[in-house]
């Protein structure tokens, strides 16, 4: 039977009468936990931002019609030369169209799939921007503006104008910022574009697009699907690309394989397209945890040291407590509870300091070309980090207190009393 009230009272008096040592031990934990919270919040915030940079605008599956040579050449079908060594010169790509055959039914089919969040069409077209006698090469992509905003956060990359503006104005264009700079154009101006075939169309600039990659911004523009179809002189079923967003990104690979087989199209999943981004994320996480755990281990040694000294100092007290009827377990609990009190107080303070620092970082201005909508450093305020941090604090102080407390438990009072 352990009388906790008495034990905690003794622990409390030990801690309070040594307030300096106690606070130093607690501060060790506080700094460890505070640093962990700050680091992990900032790092994961940054990770999420960098991931989003890729994930938000990248479709989980990109479907298009690849222009490539037939895998089976006619000679392969001719079995009379079956065992011979065959050489074919100047293989040409198979004659096929750029558009996806039956695109609209495929989109409809994909949108009915439960795993699919959305499948939306795009048309990619080569065009020229015309400025007087100068022609600038460029890409015009036909999009369904509202869907792009909904599934791929398209609006984050508009420095001026909005997706609604594009949706509402039939002859509107979202001009790449690089193009706009080169041609000294701004929202409200008109820009003339010419197709490869030579037809010239005037479009009204309703917004400026900026991806952050100068090479893309110097050529890329967006217009409505129908506008692009009209410019190209194609029918309403002319679609060159389908972008699919899934509820669960992990399914992308299997799904892309299935689509390739089913529709005989090229389907690229996000992991194949961006293999490097996951590596960066996991390495940053490892660094965060390594630093935090190191800090906590250092704090743990501090507690261990202070408790050890306290036990040497309190040898007589331990002896008399045992002589007057406190069991070894009681004595162990006195020192364990001191360690745990240091852990709890230090841990809670650490959480508060970590939260404060995270708030501070969250308000530090951070402006980048790549993300026009982000104004301050990203911080991830996730409740789990606080829970993990607190559990960390308890575990490390538990181990730091365990050995000294065990030693106190084993002290033989007779040896101490007779040694006086």
């Amino acid at each position, binding site marked *: *039977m352990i*009388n906790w*009230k*008495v034990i905690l009272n*003794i622990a409390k*008096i*030990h801690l309070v*009468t040594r307030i300096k040592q106690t606070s130093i031990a607690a501060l060790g934990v506080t700094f460890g936990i505070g640093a962990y919270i700050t680091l992990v919040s900032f790092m994961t915030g940054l990770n999420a931002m960098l991931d989003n940079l890729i994930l938000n605008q990248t479709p989980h599956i990109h479907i298009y019609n690849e222009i490539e040579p037939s895998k089976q050449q006619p000679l392969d079908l001719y079995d009379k030369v079956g065992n011979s060594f065959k050489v074919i010169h100047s293989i040409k790509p198979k004659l096929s169209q750029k558009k996806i055959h039956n695109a609209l039914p495929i989109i409809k089919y994909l949108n009915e799939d439960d795993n699919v969040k959305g499948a939306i069409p795009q048309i990619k077209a080569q065009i020229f921007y015309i400025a007087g006698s100068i022609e600038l090469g460029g890409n015009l992509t036909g999009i369904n503006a509202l869907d792009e905003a909904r599934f791929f956060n398209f609006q984050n990359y508009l420095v001026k104008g909005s997706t609604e503006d594009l949706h509402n104005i039939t002859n509107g264009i979202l001009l790449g910022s690089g193009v706009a700079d080169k041609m000294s154009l701004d929202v409200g101006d008109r820009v003339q574009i010419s197709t490869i075939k030579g037809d010239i169309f005037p479009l009204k600039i309703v917004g400026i697009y900026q991806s952050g990659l100068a090479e893309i911004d110097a050529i890329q523009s967006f217009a409505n699907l129908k506008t692009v179809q009209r410019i190209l002189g194609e029918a309403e079923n002319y679609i060159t690309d389908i972008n699919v967003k899934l509820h669960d990104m992990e399914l992308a690979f299997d799904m892309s394989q299935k689509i390739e087989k089913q529709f005989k199209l090229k389907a690229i999943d996000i992991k194949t397209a961006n293999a490097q981004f996951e590596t960066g994320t996991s390495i940053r996480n490892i660094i965060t945890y390594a630093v935090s755990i190191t800090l906590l281990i250092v704090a743990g040694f501090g507690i261990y040291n202070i408790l050890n000294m306290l036990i040497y100092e309190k040898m*007589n*007290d331990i*002896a*008399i*407590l*045992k*002589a*007057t*009827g*406190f*069991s*070894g*377990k*009681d004595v162990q609990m006195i020192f364990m509870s001191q360690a745990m009190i240091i852990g709890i107080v230090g841990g809670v303070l650490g959480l508060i300091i970590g939260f404060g620092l995270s708030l501070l970082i969250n308000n530090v201005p951070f402006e980048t070309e790549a993300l026009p909508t982000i104004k301050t450093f990203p911080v991830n305020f996730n409740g789990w980090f606080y829970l993990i941090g607190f559990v960390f604090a308890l575990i490390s102080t538990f181990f730091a207190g365990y050995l000294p407390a065990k030693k106190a438990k084993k002290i*033989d*009072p*007779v040896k101490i*009393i*007779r040694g*006086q």
Partner: protein
Amino acid sequence: MSVVLETKHVNKYFKKPVLFHVLKNINIKVNKGEFASIMGKSGCGKSTLLYILSTMDTDYEGELYINNELISGESGDKLSYIRNKHIGFVFQFHYLLSEFTVLENVMLPAKKLGEKSLKEIEQDAYQKLKILDIEHLAKKRASRISGGEKQRVAIARALINNPSIIMGDEPTGNLDSHNAENVFNIFKRLSVDEGLSLLIVTHDTDFANKTDRIIQMSDGEII
């Protein structure tokens, strides 16, 4: 007359550095209300015997009875409980917890026992301090009082759970003759007025001569 403390054929050996037979077939009895002292030269084993009797040293052969109950071979927790409830200790050194007040020091063993409410324990503690004439020190920190006073606080602490027996290991060894006299008178009064049993190890002959019975020891044997 009832027996408070009894040993039967207690033997003890020190194994380090060489095998040494410290206590040889010790048989003693302490009756209720008896004030006994153990005397002998340094190294004759009297303190060793006392710590066996105190239940703190469990490394011996033979049987130990407290209140006619065999307690040899009991578990550590049980022994702690027995010490808490039945035995009061006074050592040469006072062993007060220096950060605690005098009152808290006296109350601590009773709080551990947990048989009474905090209020009752406090009342008891004041009563014990009063018996020892030091109730005015109750609220002082234990580190702030004189050596003689500390020893009296230690006696009050030994009395708080109304033990069956008080054991002392040279309780006057660190005190001047005036304070030693004082402590003896307190013991004597407790023995006569309260019917308390006392077993005191000492090599102060004056002290021993005034007790009811002297147990003389030599080379690990009782003479």
